[in-house]
């Protein structure tokens, strides 16, 4: 019984160790300014998906911004399949956590600073960004436009 308990304890510890990762969570400013320190290392980088996911064969490029900079993430297309919202004027993109290998100057991608993703998790769903129109702006715009049209009609009629 004791031997069985010990076996399961060792097995549980083994699972925990295997499950944990040495990857450091790093922001874009740190990655760019201290790129040498993280080169070819496994890192965790989080941020909002912005722009478009650009498919290239079986892989794709996803640009992810943490608010300071956006970094290109090279991933298998299957890793990106759950990403729904991509940041733009109309949307706040999905917030994702990328685990992958950081490259200061990627030999495969012409020297780009990038991350080759191993895992992408969505940590917060994106949403539609509401942009209400200010009623005063509508009024001001209407008044100014009418004045501008009248003045230009005068110029046109008098051929100034």
């Amino acid at each position, binding site marked *: 019984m004791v031997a069985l308990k010990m076996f399961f304890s060792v097995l549980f510890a083994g699972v925990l160790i295997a499950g944990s990762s040495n990857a450091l969570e790093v922001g874009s400013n740190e990655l*760019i*300014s201290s*790129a040498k320190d993280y080169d070819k290392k496994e890192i965790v980088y989080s941020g909002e998906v*912005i*722009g*478009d*996911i*650009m*498919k*290239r064969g079986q892989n*794709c*490029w996803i*640009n992810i*911004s943490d608010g300071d*900079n*956006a970094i*290109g993430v*090279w991933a298998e297309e299957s890793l990106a399949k759950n990403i729904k919202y991509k*940041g*733009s*004027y109309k949307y*706040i993109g999905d917030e994702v956590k990328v685990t992958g290998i950081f490259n*200061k*100057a*990627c*030999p495969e*991608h*012409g*020297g*780009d*600073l*990038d991350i080759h993703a191993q895992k992408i998790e969505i940590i917060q769903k994106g949403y539609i*960004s509401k*942009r*209400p*129109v*200010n009623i005063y*702006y*509508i009024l*001001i*715009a209407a008044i*100014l*436009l009418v*004045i*501008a049209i009248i*003045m*230009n009609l*005068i*110029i046109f009629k*008098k051929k*100034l």
Partner: protein
Amino acid sequence: MLNSQTSAFKIIGYYVGKIITVLAILQILPIITSIVYKEWDIVFDFTISMSLALILGSLLVIFFNSARRRKIDWSHGMIIAALSWFAGMILCAIPYYLSGNFNSFLDSLFDVMSGFTTTGVVLIQDLDHVSNGINMWRHVLTYLGGQGMVVLALTFLVKSTSGSYRMYVGEAKDEQLLPNVINTSKAIWFISIAYLVFGTIVLWVTGIFIGLPVDKAFLDGLWVFMAAWSTGGFAPHTQNILYYHSLWYELATVVFFVIGSFNFALHFALWNKNRKEIVRNIEIQSMSITVTILTIITIAGLMKLNVYPNIVSTFRKGFYLLISGHTTTGFMTIYAKQFFTEWGNLALFAVIIAMLIGGSACSTAGGFKGLRMGIIFKGFFRDVKRIILPESRVQIDKFHHIGDTVLEDKHLRSAMLIVLAYILTFAIGTLAGVFFGYPLSSAAFESASVTGNVGLSIGITTPGMPNALKIIYIIIMWVARLEFMSVFALVTYIFTGARRRWLH
């Protein structure tokens, strides 16, 4: 004396009013874009801004219409150009500010001047969430700035040719492609729009090929072409050209911004099937030599520090950024900080020199210009030959720019004066950067970028930089793009007027 002052005031007011009207009408483009993409708040921002510009332009035209048939002299032409750029900066910044993408109105002014002068350094916030309307306006401004807003006004609004040439020269363009300056302006716009159609199609197809959705590929293609052709350096994403992660996209932009940095007279010669001109032209020869030498220095600097893992990526990054700086475009495929942390002094030195030399005269590019570099080097070798050869021998040197011209001292003096003015401006910008606490190499890099109207950044130009430095950079961009004379004429006019009023 006061009468002539009043008359000058009216002439300047009338033509500035016309140019402001053109800038107002152009805001229809971002309005249409915003309507298509249902960006209603942006539609109203632009309607307010367009209406204000139309009202101001109309007021000037109505009040000063008595001056429309009066003769425009050299000082008027220069002042009209400089003042139009200044007034245009303020009016075109209104939609930027109303959009909420800028921390202050000063930041909006900075980005407009950066666009007009085809510099390309930016203070805009959260560019990745900016509306299509604002992005359209950013790129229209840089495209307009590249060809020249006075050129545009001459093309569409000014019927009289008398004095038009003076306004045209005031905007740092002096090539007459055709005998009539209005026809020259039309030719410049014809060349630019023909390339715009072709370039947009190429980048659109490339965009689809690299995985962009069809409509985004079109908009990005249009905007990136506008910025490339105008050697402007704006892009619709914070990562600039790095966003696309594509060699093909980079190659296409290189072709377009190199062509954009050529003299309009050269384009016109090639358009008229004078193909030999591209080999014989002094500006192309000068640019080929400086690009080759500076590329070698850049690559050597990068290789010495092992910045990139292999020669292919060293060349791809090194050449792209060097040629982007040399043509004064400012497209980037690395992050600004990487210049400072990785590139090393040798490569930075080469890029700084490239940015200062710049593209061709009478083009969309900034910097000293290839024509002046060519003339100065020819003059230098002429003087060396004079020392070596017997005094009795008469030596006539020529340079080829569309036609053959005998190299005279007046050419040399004029070229040297402008180059000297650029160097002084660069020194002032560097000193200002150092004064505000930035390292010398960074201050010199950023100053070269704004002086040459380039747009590459080492990280100084951010919304958090001191306001005084923003104002200094705005003035440098404006003065350098108009090649000094117009702005000096405007400043002299204002001081003379103020002094006369004071004395009376």
